[in-house]
């Protein structure tokens, strides 16, 4: 059982296209235990109820954005240690700074490829 068979990932993105692209990449990598949410608040509820190892989350979403979700996860101690990778098209210095303060694990730039996605995940959780 390699890590890619056991790792559980939550994908949070309000756009179904992005979700489809992310899940497509994950499947190409060979990760099968993933779930998707289109709303950060709903995702937070799900993660609190049933923890995952890693969250792949879009930055720009209505209601609660990616960093807000990260903050919420980090301040709740049952979820504080969950890995969190932010996916964004605009990694500004400001965003990087806040991300690091909140303990962001990694950042994937849009548009991504399966290779960059895999590399980014591996830098957080180790070889898949």
């Amino acid at each position: 059982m390699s890590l890619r068979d056991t790792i559980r990932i939550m994908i949070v993105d309000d756009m179904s296209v992005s979700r489809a692209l992310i899940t497509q990449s994950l499947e190409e990598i060979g990760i099968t235990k993933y779930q998707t949410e289109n709303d950060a608040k709903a995702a937070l509820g799900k993660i609190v109820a049933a923890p995952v190892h890693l969250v792949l989350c879009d930055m720009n979403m209505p209601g609660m954005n990616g960093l807000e979700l990260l903050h919420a996860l980090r301040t709740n101690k049952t979820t504080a240690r969950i890995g969190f990778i932010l996916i964004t098209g605009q990694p500004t210095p400001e965003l990087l700074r806040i991300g690091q303060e909140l303990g962001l694990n990694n950042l994937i730039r849009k548009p991504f490829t399966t290779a960059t996605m895999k590399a980014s995940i591996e830098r957080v959780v180790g070889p898949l």
Partner: protein
Amino acid sequence: MGNPILDTFFEETEELLESLAEGLESMQGAEFDKEIVNSVFRAVHSIKGGAGAFKLNALVSFAHSFETVLDEVRSETLELTPQVMHTLIRSADHLTDLVDAARSGRTMPEDVSAGFLSALEACLGEGKIEAVDAWDNFEFAAVTLDIAPIEEPGEAAPEAEAASGSQAGFTIAFKPHATLYANGHEPALLFAALADLGQMTTTVDLSRLPEWDDLDPTVPHLSWTIALRTDESEIAVQEVFEFVHGLCDLVISPLADPTPPPKVEPVPVVKAAPVAPVAAAPVAAPEPSAPKAEAPTMSDRAAAAVAALKVKADKAEDAEAKAPKATLRVDLDRVDRLINAVGELIINQAMIAQRLQDMTTTRDDDLVMHIEDYRLLARDIQEGVMAIRAQPVKSLFQRMSRIVREAADATGKAAELVTSGEGTEVDKTVVERLADPLTHMIRNAVDHGLENREARAASGKPAMGTIKLSASHRSGSVIITVRDDGAGLNRPKILEIAKRKNLVPADAELSDSEIDQLLFMPGFSTAATVSNLSGRGVGLDVVRNAVTALGGRISIATTPGQGTEFTIMLPLTLAVMDGMVVTVGGQTLVVPITSIIETIRPQPSDLHRIGTDETLLSIRGRMIPVVDVARSLGFPSPDNLAAPLLLLVESESLGECALVVDGVQDQRQVVIKSLESNFGSVPGVSAATVLGDGRIALILDPDAVAGGRTAGMHMPNILSNAGRTAYANV
């Protein structure tokens, strides 16, 4: 296309563009609302993100500039002047074009995009828009994490326990008595309830299990030790065992040895990052998370609980406020197949009802009742299926505001579009096929309807012209009106043009409404200077044809000095209609019930012969032209004009007129079967249907029948001769 994700992208983009247009519209009117600007920004941002994934570069680079400007507006560093607003709205239009182009695999001309880009840049000043790839060289120092398997609920997983942090907990020793089982309790359910409280590890003690041969199944041999990590109090744990109290040995004690959580090992991956200086700084350990995880305090717990509560409350609020309706995307073919099947069902019902009526020998009341139920059910199903295809006209109306903007820009007039009734639902096909005629009418309204600035100022009207577009339901029809507040129709000029173009004889005397109708004649174009906007040789006749093809009618009303109103009346569905079954010249025809006002059998004294073969009906003090349907369709006409049966119908071209028919058979719902694909467009006949007895009946187009009549009277060259030959061939 073949790429389902790309298809989804375009579908989603369409929705985003809609909300973009909507957002921009409300930004225009109301005060600065940050939430609206945010949603507008997000729409553009999401389109950019998706487009990037599919390497639609033209789209990405334009969306990027657009987004940059919106970002400035959002952060209030850029003031929302009317000029900026105008640029934003036009940019949204251009974005729509780019999406369309991308969808059909075309590329937009560079210079068009360049024009819009420079307009956007002008908003910010030179050089403010960074290149799309400005942040390409960023380097984020990833923070590595130990991944511990997460246990399945109820399953033993010691590592997970460790990873779960430093929760308080209890050790529970549980040994059920025989009475526990006898009372119908089940340890597994108790454990499940415990699992809800936190993470638990269950160890079963099998030591007292006897050899198989000695086993007494009525005596319990098992006991369990449960290590439960939970924030709950002991009372909560005891509550789980409340109902088995006294039926088991139960010892609950605080967890002896809470395993300290392994620390997150931050691996500082420091890289020289040329662009992002922040990332180049040494990465500190994730401070906010680690210390808290190690030493949970009451206040932390409370804060977490409050946060959780807040999230819950927010969620509930959200659900109430803007719970999106669950929808289902279905392949259109499937719906159309269903609609076809329902059409056949209705025909089938009519046939059965007909056969039953013919079986006069035995009359079974029950059967009659069931058939009636069948009819109602079929109608219910049909309405339900039609509702699937129904769409609000909102998206159509939204496109029109763009047309108004473009037309206003091109003509140098100021115009705004006011819409109402956007929620009115119409068949999808109608929405689609109405787009072109409506575009044309809106352009006309701006180009020809509205006066220029000077004329408006002279007549004391506000400089901003208003185009009103509204939709509503009225008695089984959809009414769409386009109204301008311009000068109204210039009838003498219209008549003059028509005469010059030989559309009417030079000596023709036409009533006002007949002059208005001239606008719909092929080859009529009023603008003295042919503008590049609406004077393209396609006139209102094209609009009328499109509307007629949808089974609708168009009419025109004008008040000099106050404006012109076009009204389009459309059937709700294109698949079934209520019709009156009549016989004409031995043929069975169906007349749409929507156009029938009344049926009448007049006294011979009410009929007045005019000239050689014209007849007028005098009714309630008015004279109405009588149209012999049989003759206009080219059927052998029995001369029954002495005591005819008349259908009073309303036609757009002639106002009211009376159709001569031989007899009225029935009034019923008929399924419309288009003839167009097999026979082309047949003037006077809009479609056909299958009657209950299996016969085919043509569906009459009263307007064309009556219109052909006027044509014969005043405009001999339109369709009288050619039309009649066509009827004869039907």
